[in-house]
């Protein structure tokens, strides 16, 4: 995924081998806490340290920060400590999700493949 899109690795480069179970996109952390599943890739514009906390809490496979939004250094530090890969792209969320879908990553509520 990192090579195919491609994505920059900001943190957690030694944890990139986890299987991806699906994807979830939102900038509202409360919704992510309620909606994302373990092993998901989370696509967001948020760079707050709570992003690393929530990703770790849910056991997500990775976080992708879109539009090269600023990511707080504390976020990267916490992600590194918690083994959460933080990836970045210049693409906007819509375009990135389209790319991920092309690679076979599916939304948590999407039906059988097309």
């Amino acid at each position, binding site marked *: 995924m990192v090579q195919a899109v491609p994505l920059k690795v900001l943190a957690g480069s030694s944890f990139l081998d986890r299987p991806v179970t699906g994807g979830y996109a939102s900038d*509202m*952390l*409360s919704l*992510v806490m309620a909606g994302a599943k373990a092993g998901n890739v989370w696509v967001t514009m948020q*760079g707050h*340290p*709570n992003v690393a906390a*929530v990703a770790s809490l849910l056991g997500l496979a990775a976080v992708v920060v879109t539009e090269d939004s600023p990511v*707080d250094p504390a976020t990267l530090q916490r992600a590194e400590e918690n083994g959460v890969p933080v990836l970045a792209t210049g693409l906007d969320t819509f375009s990135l999700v389209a790319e991920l879908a092309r690679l076979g990553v599916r939304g948590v509520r999407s039906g059988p493949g097309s």
Partner: protein
Amino acid sequence: MNSLRPIFADLHLHTVASACAEVEMIPPLIVRRARELGIELLAVTDHHSVENAAAVQEAARAVGIEVLAGMEVQTREEVHVVCYFDDTVQAEQWQEMIWKRLPGMANRPEFFGEQYVVDATGAYVRTNERLLQTSTDLSFDELFWLAEQWGVLAVPAHVDRPRYSLFANLGVLPETVRLPGVEISRNIAPQEALRRFPSLRGLGMVQSGDAHRLKEMTNSTLLKLKEPTAQEVRKALLGQEGRSVKILEER
């Protein structure tokens, strides 16, 4: 040693400087409603503006209601935070700093509403033509860091709301910021807030109206302060030196 006194307060209030506020939110009507409700301390907290604070202060002076200058700031994560100032010059400098962190676009009153600066009688002085009702580029953590540097009291607003709030947008209490306390909305009882957000236990809590119309002003927060200042409110939230804050049931 001056004694502490109980003061009923509503620390989140919009005037006609906020695009989303009703036209009735002018100084004399705000003061009259505060009197009816027995509110003794108000804070004017318009969106990214302190321009109407002095007018409300002037209107309130004659009836002995105290008014803090304040501002509601929207962080990059779209979390609302109310800020309080003890010094008019500082409030204006803070406003200047905040305006530089806004996108520098013009307000579109047909979408957002007008942003009027008024005098103590409510008479029109000027229109603020900046787009104020949008996010600054400050992160939540950066805003609290700045507030600490400036000695400004900053409190996350209406943390129980489903949008523009700490819990909705950032999920959990950040471990990276030391909060003096939080504000809950008028829609939730403090016990219910603690049940829904157990991490609030031990934090000072105020309940404020976030009034955009007169009937939304709220008088449930009872502070015990030496004097009605932002620094005293900070002490009350932190429970320092006998200062305290309590949210009463319906008054």
